[in-house]
């Protein structure tokens, strides 16, 4: 019988061993693709996370620095010498003998330019990393005293514009002429200089200047116009306009040259220092470089160097170092170094607001980072659990195959190497693509950390499933591991206890210390406290896994005695699923739900804190108040008719009411029309009250007026009728209630009185009634319309407009908190998606076995509807339990962890200063709790419905022929 077969000797095949990886790949390409996709997604997220963190911080910093004032993004270097000689030292100027030479001497101009540029270069050389100066945009120049020189009306010509009778003042300034584009006349020539009385050079003869077209237009000047200067100590030189240059375009105006000297571009109406209500025009005229030495003639002169900081190159990580460098430049070692710059008298002093901006940024960032870390840690934990689950399920599918291999004599090392090779083939390309995609899509920040994160996920994904599969195959015999049967080993008990202790420690640490930084340096986030929500979810999952069989058994008991077979069958099958099939999804779901609910709570807490802050700041949806006595009645009516305004109330206030003149404390008396005001209070939610408390409107003379008051004011008023001296006249009031707050005075103490009674007193006294000085609006108040109305009114200068929606928008767009919120939202979304994925996978994984069962049952007469019910009873216990337990855990984690988490930094602060933000702990909100769990259950039911529909359509025969292979 032993006939040697002719061997087909294809050389490749003959030497080839039994293929493994290739054969497996070919066998289940879908599974491989799915796993690869999951690995791709998770590595992408892991790599993107540090990049996104850096990116959001960087862009927040850049936005902050873009929006900040000029001094917040530049270094202003000034000579450190005495103010009078704050200009170039004499040796830097052309020698006076040459000064007598008239005409536009290019050498003269160049020497001034060179001197300024040299100082700039030296200053830049002293600026150290990480501050980088944008050399191309450096701006420097010299101008006469910022006070300016008064310009007198020229004789025989129309007077210069002077809105409040204050004459215009002109500043003489020089900057490199490259920025000027002449539209009329020519560039001024250098003047002839001579030594003045005190040894300072002065202009001899005529000083030629150029002005911008805007200045010329405003002042009615043309080429050839004279500027008559008065008020100088020395006789003023004859000043003639010889050139008019173009106004800077909007784009040019953002160049530092124009931005640092805006007056060179356009005149500005400035309030008079002595009489702030009076405005006058300030102008600047461009003088040639030859005149620079003589500028001190005009009330002193000042050389300046604006060194723009390349803020776009500054990263969030560099912020502390940059702040330190700025500190050093303004008051530290580098400042000393700058003092030695010889070209400027006494060296240079540098000032900048950047340090302050950076410190604020760092402070805010450090407060926000831990909260973000909590969210991200939750997502990471969920992702790990889902990965473990997916690889566990994949290994479960192959349990039989591995058991056979073990029985046939495969060593553990053999299994390990083959599975690892298989796993590597699946994860490596996927991880490479994921990491690369993240690096390409978010090209910023610390690449090494990002790659490290991605690689860690890759390693976990590669090894976790393999090790798990091999560890379970240590013994050769296959054993069943039903959930209701399998008993936790003693080792697992110890591990569970350890996890519980760790969780307790994390929670205690979080509650005691908050999510603070550990130590001083680096990314010192305490990993223990940051992981607290995850640990809480994990411990909950461990407990649930231990308890899970119990409710299942209890649920099975009544179904045993009932007549229907479906319930019993479904629950029995649920109990018979292998532990991997149900416990790992349970863990993944619980973690996901806990973190999602916690994250949702944080997010809604932030939104609520913002809404609360805006309500507290505005008192209603819109608020118009005046510093003057009253708001014009016509304006009030117009405001009331503004589209979108649904309700309004007017208030007459006495902000300086002294309840007890001896005590000296002042409260605000808000005189209101009770009914509309109560409506607004109730709608806004600030101290709602029953308007009838404030009386029927007209009080009889002699009877005390009912008032409501804040707690502190009420304490002063007491319960007896009190006499008060108000701006409306003396009144007797009686306290009828205490309100926590009220729209007219959302912060501070107040007394609320009915308008009818109080104003009747005033009318009786003065014969007139006060009208409103505060209008509260409710509804969709359009800020632009309200502002337009206010600006059209003659009292616009004393009116203040506050729109809640605008304030909310400002808060929402605060760079750092809004970026952090977005990141947090992304984390919550990712967690929810992972949870959905876990549900989907666990359902799909069990689908073939269920299909076979259903087919068998259908041969016995199972109706499709019953099949649907069977799948539901089988699949739902885990998911429902996880949904309930996860929501409860998430809910529990809010009060347990909430005390340690301060949301005020995430919500941003109304005043802009983070110190003013009140600490805000997250509170439980139903939507945040029910949302994710509901979505999960809905998805599960959908999948089950889909599954039963698909199975129902399939031919039973085909299903049964397929046999037990599933």
């Amino acid at each position, binding site marked *: *019988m032993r006939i040697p077969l002719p061997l087909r000797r294809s050389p490749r095949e003959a030497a080839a061993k039994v293929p493994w990886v290739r054969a497996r790949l070919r066998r289940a390409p879908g599974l491989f693709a799915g796993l690869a996709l999951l690995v791709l997604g998770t590595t992408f997220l892991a790599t993107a996370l540090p990049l996104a963190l850096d990116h959001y911080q960087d862009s927040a910093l850049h936005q902050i620095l873009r929006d900040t004032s000029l001094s917040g993004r530049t270094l202003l270097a000034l000579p450190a010498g005495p103010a009078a000689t704050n200009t170039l030292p004499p040796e830097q100027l052309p020698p006076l003998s040459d000064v007598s030479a008239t005409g536009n001497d290019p050498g003269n101009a160049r020497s001034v330019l060179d001197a300024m540029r040299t100082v700039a270069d030296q200053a830049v050389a002293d600026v150290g990393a990480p501050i980088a100066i944008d050399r191309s945009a450096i701006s420097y120049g010299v101008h006469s005293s910022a006070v300016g020189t008064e310009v007198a009306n020229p004789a025989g010509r129309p007077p210069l514009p002077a809105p409040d009778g204050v004459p215009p003042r002109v500043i003489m300034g020089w900057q490199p002429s490259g920025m000027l584009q002449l539209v009329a006349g020519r560039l001024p020539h250098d003047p002839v200089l001579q030594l003045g009385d005190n040894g300072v050079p002065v202009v001899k003869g005529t000083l030629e200047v150029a002005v911008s077209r805007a200045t010329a237009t405003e002042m009615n000047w043309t080429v050839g116009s004279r500027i008559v200067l008065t008020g100088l100590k020395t006789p003023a030189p004859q000043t003639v306009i010889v050139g008019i240059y173009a106004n800077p375009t909007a784009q040019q105006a953002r160049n530092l040259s124009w931005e640092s000297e805006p007056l060179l571009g356009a005149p500005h109406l400035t309030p008079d220092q002595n009489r702030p209500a009076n405005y006058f025009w300030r102008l600047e005229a461009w003088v040639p470089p030859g005149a620079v030495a003589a500028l001190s003639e005009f009330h002193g002169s000042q050389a300046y160097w604006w060194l723009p900081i390349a803020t776009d190159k500054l990263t969030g990580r560099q912020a502390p170092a940059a702040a330190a460098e700025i500190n050093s430049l303004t008051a530290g070692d580098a400042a000393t170094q700058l003092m030695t710059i010889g070209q400027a008298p006494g060296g240079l002093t540098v000032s900048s607001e950047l340090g302050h901006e950076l410190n604020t940024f760092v402070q805010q960032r450090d407060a926000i980072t831990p909260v973000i870390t909590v969210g991200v840690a939750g997502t990471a934990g969920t992702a790990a659990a889902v990965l473990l689950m997916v690889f566990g399920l994949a290994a479960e599918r192959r349990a039989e195959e591995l058991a056979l291999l073990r*029985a046939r*004599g495969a060593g553990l090392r053999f299994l390990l190497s083959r599975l690892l090779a298989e796993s590597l083939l699946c994860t490596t390309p996927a991880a490479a693509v994921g990491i690369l995609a993240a690096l390409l899509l978010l090209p910023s920040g610390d690449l090494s950390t990002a790659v490290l994160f991605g690689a860690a996920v890759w390693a976990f994904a590669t090894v976790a499933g393999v090790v798990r599969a091999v560890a379970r195959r240590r013994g050769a015999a296959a054993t069943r591991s039903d959930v209701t049967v399998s008993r936790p080993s003693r080792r697992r008990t110890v591990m569970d206890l350890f996890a519980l202790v760790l969780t307790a420690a994390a929670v205690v640490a979080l509650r005691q210390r908050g999510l603070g930084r550990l130590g001083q340096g680096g990314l010192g986030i305490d990993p223990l406290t940051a992981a607290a929500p995850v640990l809480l979810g994990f411990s909950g999952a461990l407990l649930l896994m231990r308890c899970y069989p119990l409710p299942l058994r209890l649920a099975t008991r009544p179904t045993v005695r009932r007549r229907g077979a479906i319930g019993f069958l479904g629950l029995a099958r649920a109990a018979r699923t292998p532990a991997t099939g149900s416990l790992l999804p349970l863990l993944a779901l619980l973690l996901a739900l806990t973190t999602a609910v916690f994250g949702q709570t944080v997010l809604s807490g932030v939104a609520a804190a913002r809404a609360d802050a805006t309500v507290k700041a505005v008192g209603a949806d819109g608020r118009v108040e005046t510093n003057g006595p009253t708001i014009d009645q016509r304006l009030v009516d117009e405001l009331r008719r503004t589209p979108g305004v649904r309700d309004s109330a007017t208030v007459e206030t006495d902000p300086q009411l002294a309840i007890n003149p001896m005590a000296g404390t002042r409260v605000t008396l808000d005189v209101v029309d009770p009914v509309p005001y109560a409506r607004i209070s109730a709608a806004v939610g600030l101290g709602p009250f029953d308007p009838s408390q404030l009386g029927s409107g007209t009080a009889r003379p002699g009877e005390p007026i009912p008032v409501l008051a804040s707690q502190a004011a009420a304490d002063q008023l007491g319960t007896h009728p009190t006499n008060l001296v108000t701006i409306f006249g003396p009144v007797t009031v009686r306290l009828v209630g205490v309100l926590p707050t009220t729209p007219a005075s959302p912060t501070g103490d107040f007394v609320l009185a009915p308008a009818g009674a109080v104003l009747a007193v005033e009318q009786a006294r003065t014969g007139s009634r006060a009208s409103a000085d505060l209008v509260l609006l409710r509804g969709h108040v359009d800020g632009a319309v309200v502002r337009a109305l206010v600006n059209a009114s003659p009292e616009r200068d004393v009116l203040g407009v506050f729109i809640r929606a605008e304030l909310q928008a400002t808060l929402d767009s605060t760079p750092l908190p809004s970026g952090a919120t977005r990141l947090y939202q992304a984390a919550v979304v990712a967690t929810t998606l992972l949870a959905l994925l876990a549900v989907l996978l666990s359902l799909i994984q069990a689908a073939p076995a269920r299909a076979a069962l259903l087919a068998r049952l259908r041969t016995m007469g199972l109706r499709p509807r019953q099949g649907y019910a069977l799948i539901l009873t089988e699949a739902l216990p885990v998911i429902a339990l996880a949904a309930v337990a996860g929501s409860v855990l998430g809910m529990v984690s809010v009060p347990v962890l909430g005390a340690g988490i301060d949301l005020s930094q995430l919500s941003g602060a109304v005043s802009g200063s983070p110190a003013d933000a009140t600490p805000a702990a997250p509170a439980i909100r139903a939507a945040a709790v029910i949302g994710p769990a509901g979505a999960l259950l809905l998805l599960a039911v959908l999948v089950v419905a889909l599954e039963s529909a698909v199975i129902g359509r399939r031919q039973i025969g085909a299903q049964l022929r397929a046999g037990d292979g599933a």
Partner: protein
Amino acid sequence: MTSTTEGTRQGVPEGVPDGVTLDELRRRAAGDRDRPQYGHDALIVCDRLVRIYSTEGIEVQALQGLDLTVTKGELMALVGASGSGKSTLLHILAGLDVPTAGKARVGDSDLLGMSAKERLRYRREVVGFVWQQTTRNLLPFLTARQNVQLPMQLAGRDGGRAQRARALELLELLDVADCRDRRPDQLSGGQQQRVAIAVALANRPDVLLADEPTGELDSETGALIFEAFRTVNNELGSTVVIVTHDPLVAGEVRRTVAVRDGRAAMEVLRRTSKDADGTESVVEHEYAMLDRAGRVQLPRAFLEALGMEHRVELTLEPDHVKLWPEHRAAD
């Protein structure tokens, strides 16, 4: 000479007869030591083999002191009801399960005392097995040839070319050479099972174990499979142990051991003898197993027929032992 022995219940140690002194027992034990080892000449030796499982906290005694010897080159069948412990025995013999107590030896391998490494070598080189479910014997993603080659590769024997040649040789021997490049799902049940036998034989094992190899097959295919076993037994000289329900199979082998309640209970030996006129006939002898302690398990049919319970009366005759139900003795 007549002696009455108390019927003993399984698992309960036999009581020491009255009048036996401790010295007497010691002497007997010393005498036991000098006797040749039980089954010293056999390939498979199971001596008072015990295997206790615990599932759901309940202990299950699957094997309760099973004795079995199989000599080299034998083709035998193990029969028994479900739960009688025959599959447990097979798992132990396959090196997949470890007995709780007793002795089990296959060739030179002691199944109780093996290290993990020795056990691996044992599975690779000493035994091969075929399971009942046709799909469980083969890896679904490998072709028939690759499946046969896999154990050789796991054992690390020979070169790839030699492995391939042997794989084809085995497939040819089992008459499934034409299936060599097909995957299991493209094979019929019988073909699958024959490929599975080839896989089991890949490493030239001393023992071939088969657990209900014909269980999922129709009788005709079953007969073919059984023929394949016989071929293997004849051609390769492998010792074959088949666990089966199938009376057809049981009728084909020379020795059938029935396992009941975790013990070998009955044994049927068949011999072909020739009459004077030359016609062959199969002579079947049914034996009850006598264990080393002298216990005999009576077939249930006998017990029921005579209403034997608790106790029986024994009398020793010159060449046999007589056994009566208890009530007869009381009459």
